[in-house]
């Protein structure tokens, strides 16, 4: 995401520590735009919150981790194990059920428990769970700390996996359409730049780690390069076939109670062909100290 776009609008990231607070902020309109879990966005629309998915945050970027010394070598080995997921309304939860179906396992054959993402590595280290599935960088953190190893990356389980999506309130679409377009274009351009060169990813890890997320840049560099397709930032247009599959699985699992049509919760009108978008790096201003301290 950009702090200042070429056209002068300012987009500031507001960091949260759990999705429940984001959800409440969206409902109360203390927040007009946010990255949230895809099934959570669907559930909010089903419960009458006027939001639309306008873009994806990334593709893949989730890893199923087990303890470093675990004897588990494939998905069947997780039978009877306790695995943490970030949220009931997460696509990680849906992915685990999708895998159980593929491996001919009943939905209760693995014990899934909800834990906030930052607690996953410590719970694995303490032995209170046998594994976890969550977005990066929390899997990579356990890998670097020597307490966990990846069992599967999402690219190997459900290629082009969707985790977080960009949602905006309908009022913002109606009243400030240009601002939403500018935001979506900025994310698309940033993703294109990130995926164009590994050196760009290393630069981004330095800047984001030090000035925005307060995360170890070396951890972010690991996530963005080991392997490079661990997480992808292109192909971010929300596609009907992807969301229809999520919807069907969510209904089958009982995570969602009401079927929604794609057009009810997605607005694809902000998607611009990627070949027409590029940052003008010469024009981009450098972030101010005030902007980076938010």
């Amino acid at each position, binding site marked *: 995401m950009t702090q*200042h776009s070429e056209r002068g*609008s300012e987009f*500031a990231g507001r960091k949260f520590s759990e999705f429940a607070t984001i959800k409440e902020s*969206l409902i109360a309109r203390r927040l007009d735009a946010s990255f949230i879990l895809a099934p959570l966005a669907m559930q909010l629309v089903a419960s009458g919150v006027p939001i639309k998915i306008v873009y994806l945050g990334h593709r893949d970027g989730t890893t199923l981790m087990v303890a470093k010394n675990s004897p588990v070598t494939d998905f069947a080995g997780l039978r009877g194990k306790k695995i943490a997921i970030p949220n009931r309304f997460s696509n990680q939860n849906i992915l685990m059920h999708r895998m159980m179906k593929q491996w001919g396992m009943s939905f209760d054959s693995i014990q899934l428990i909800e834990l906030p993402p930052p607690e996953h590595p410590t719970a694995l280290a303490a032995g209170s769970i046998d594994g976890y599935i969550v977005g*990066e960088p929390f899997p990579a953190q356990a890998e670097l700390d020597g307490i966990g190893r990846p069992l599967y990356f999402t690219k190997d389980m459900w290629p082009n996996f969707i985790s977080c999506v960009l949602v905006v309130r309908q009022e913002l679409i109606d009243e400030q359409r240009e601002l939403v377009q500018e935001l979506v274009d900025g994310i698309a351009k940033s993703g294109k730049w990130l995926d164009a060169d590994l050196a760009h990813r290393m630069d981004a890890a330095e800047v984001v780690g030090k000035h925005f*997320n307060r995360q170890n840049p070396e951890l972010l560099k690991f996530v963005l390069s080991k392997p490079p397709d661990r997480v992808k930032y292109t192909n971010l247009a929300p596609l009907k076939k992807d969301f229809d599959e999520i919807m069907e699985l969510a209904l089958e699992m009982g995570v969602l109670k009401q079927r929604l049509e794609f057009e009810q919760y997605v607005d694809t009108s902000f998607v611009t062909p990627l070949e027409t978008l590029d940052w003008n790096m010469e024009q981009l*201003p450098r972030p101010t100290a005030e902007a980076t301290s938010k």
Partner: protein
Amino acid sequence: MKLKVLLGALLWTLLVSLAHVQLNIGWSQVNAIVREWMGHKRKTLDVGFLPVT
């Protein structure tokens, strides 16, 4: 002589300021600041996120 020194100092300040904008600030940032001075308030939007992919 005094006039030459004054003009030289002004020219030096101007050149250093232009170099500072070019190297450290960026012309679009200056453009945004000027637009704010002229009453064109920059649009802002907070976007929520968790530091997780």
